[in-house]
């Protein structure tokens, strides 16, 4: 796992966009990194509240929760997992390209990430539509085929919509941020001395990926066995 350390050329220092209250570019970058990770911790606990609810109800209503896996589309869910993993790869490549001052590749990988992100949302929309058609939207038209699980399965489907909905909302915000990055990259803002926004939004994107990595087995796979 060797990494190269590129010394910053003195001549390029005017490109670093140092804000007035920081003493050095390293201080600015450190602050941004720590701030972003702190923000991600708040996100962990935000989603954590839903994971805790899921754990409690799964423990209480094991049978009802397991039965819901029958109504989850593993193929679409699995495809979406793969799509998100691909988007993470292109995202990290975009960061890498920005670090190397490669504007063309930065833009290319940003666009690819956005395509994967959009594909994820489209597939998610197809799944949501299927749930609506099958009368599995809690609170509006919920009618579960297994009568004794009607109420408890509704809680699971509510958590399903909350968790995937919040996740999708984060994806949409992420797509907005990527659009911003694309415009900035087009304007030649990023270079080897200034790429903090690409890296920070990259961290956000990977975090959203990690959330899905947990949602996929918990919602789609548990109880799937027969």
């Amino acid at each position, binding site marked *: 796992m060797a990494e190269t350390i590129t010394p910053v050329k003195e001549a390029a220092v005017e490109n670093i966009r140092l804000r*007035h*209250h920081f*003493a050095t570019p390293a*201080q600015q970058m*450190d*602050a941004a990194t*720590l*701030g972003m990770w*702190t*923000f991600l*911790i*708040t*996100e962990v*606990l*935000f*989603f*954590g*509240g*839903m994971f*805790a*609810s899921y754990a*409690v*109800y799964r423990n*209480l*209503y094991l049978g009802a929760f397991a039965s819901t896996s029958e109504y989850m589309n593993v193929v679409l869910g699995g495809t979406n997992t793969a799509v998100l993993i691909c988007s993470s790869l292109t995202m990290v490549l975009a960061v890498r390209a920005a670090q190397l001052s490669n504007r063309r590749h930065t833009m290319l990988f940003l666009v690819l990430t956005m395509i994967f992100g959009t594909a994820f949302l489209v597939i998610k929309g197809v799944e949501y539509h299927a749930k609506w058609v099958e009368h599995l939207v*809690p*609170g*509006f038209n*919920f009618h579960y085929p297994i009568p004794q699980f009607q*109420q*408890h399965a*509704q*809680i699971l489907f*509510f*958590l399903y919509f*909350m968790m995937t909905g919040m996740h999708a909302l984060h994806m949409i915000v992420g797509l907005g941020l990527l659009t911003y990055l694309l415009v900035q990259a087009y304007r030649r803002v990023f270079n080897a001395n200034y790429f903090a926004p690409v890296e920070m939004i990259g961290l956000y994107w990977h975090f959203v990926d990690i959330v899905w990595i947990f949602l996929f087995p918990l919602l789609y796979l548990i109880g799937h066995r027969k």
Partner: protein
Amino acid sequence: MATIAQGTPEIAAQEVNYLNVEHGWKSWLFTTDHKRIAILYLISITLMFFVGGFMAVLFRINLLEPEGIFSAETYNRLFSMHGIIMVFFFLVPSIPATLANFLIPIMVGAKDLAFPRVNLLSWYIYVIGAFLTMYAVIRGGVDTGWTFYAPYSSTYSNSYVLAAAFGVFTAGFSSILTGLNFIVTVHKMRAPGMSWSRLPLFVWSNYATGLIQVLGTPVLAIVLLLLAFERIAHVGIFDPNIGGDPILFQHLFWFYSHPAVYIMILPGMGVISEIVSCFSRKRVFGYNFVAFSSMAIAVLSFVVWGHHMFLTGQSVYTSIAFSFLSMMVAVPSAIKVFNWTATMYKGSVSFDTPMLYAFGFIGLFTIGGLTGLHLATLGTDIALHGTYFIVAHFHYVMVGGMVMAFMGGLHFWWPKMTGRMYPEAWSKFAALIVFIGFNLTFFPQFILGYMGMPRRYHAYPPEFQALNVLSTAGASILGIGYLIPMVYLIWSLKNGPKAGPNPWGAAGLEWQIQSPPTTFNFDETPIVTEEAYNYGPLEEVVG
């Protein structure tokens, strides 16, 4: 404390500072200067404080008569909105968003917080949250109590729960952003030589507060969101009739809201450390212990939430663990009180207004803290739960503690923030009035609670009337005690004598720059060479 190359303040007749560097409303609403944002926050939370206080006056009037004066419905809405506004829109942002926002960058020797634009954003988010909540108030308020307990709030309440809950949800993000900014600032923006062991204790306590805000508030956000969907779509997540568990709401709610109690008190403890040290002219006794007790409180605060739920059907075994852990919080809290007292021992104590508030804090917080032990004990809590004993307990901590500290801090740093002194006699008089009014209001409530008067009822048996009248009388005195500073502080803006950079002869970086500070605080980055609270003989510092 530190060596700073600083322009001597008496040179310029009309010196430039952060207040007069720019004019017009745009220069305020689009500022990224942490000092101006602190002033914006100060104005906002003061407004909310008086709205919340007005509701307290109304329901105290109701309790003058045993059968009540307003309807039960109105009374429920009044105390609920009082709680929501005071907790989420005054106490949580009170010291962090105003005094700490103003002082932390200066105390660590920085030009601004790490993320100035995020700081401004947090104020706008706060204002949006406040407007949503005020909308709920205007439409008729909320009657769920400040805790929004499900399933009452989700299914049965016939009031504007959604607007109020969404207001609190929004304000939570402002709190998160403030905490995040402080954490990064303390880690990354310290001046050369400002090591962790040289940080003022006010910075330590606000750092610990920031950790709680960042770790706890997101859970409040998600639980209010779940509540909102439950109310809109009735999916049963908190409704026991269709399989949900209302206690889950309480678990998640108190996972934030118990630590939030420490969001409300820790910054106050930091203020008291500064004041006690300055007006005793001594280094804080046991600096390391006071600093680490803040961190210990922050950590322990997250493992005690179940003591709010002893009577809910929570597992008895979990309750026993929570009871034990709650006792543990008393240790770091007591360390602080003992160390402040030890700091005063053999110090040259002077009785300026901030110190009067600090005395009030130490005494009242001790009473509030010790009565907390009654409530943390599983057996006694069964008798005292849901009575006025609890109301008195948390008002001793929140009002007797935090509001006292806020007033003390405001009087301590007012000359730094505005460059003006306030009238000394009036301020001491007001501090005394607040102390007397506070005790008259809330001490009778301990007795009422012990006698068994439950909280949150608009009517009560006639034998409780005498103590209730006493409490209401005290509340009116307390209200006057808060109005007097409002008047003379505003008066002092134009008419107060000029303060000079260091009117108290205090140590600390903030006292070595001009009052009010310039936009970037320091002309040159200071280099810190000494520990905090390096108080020598008085004559050398004042002059």
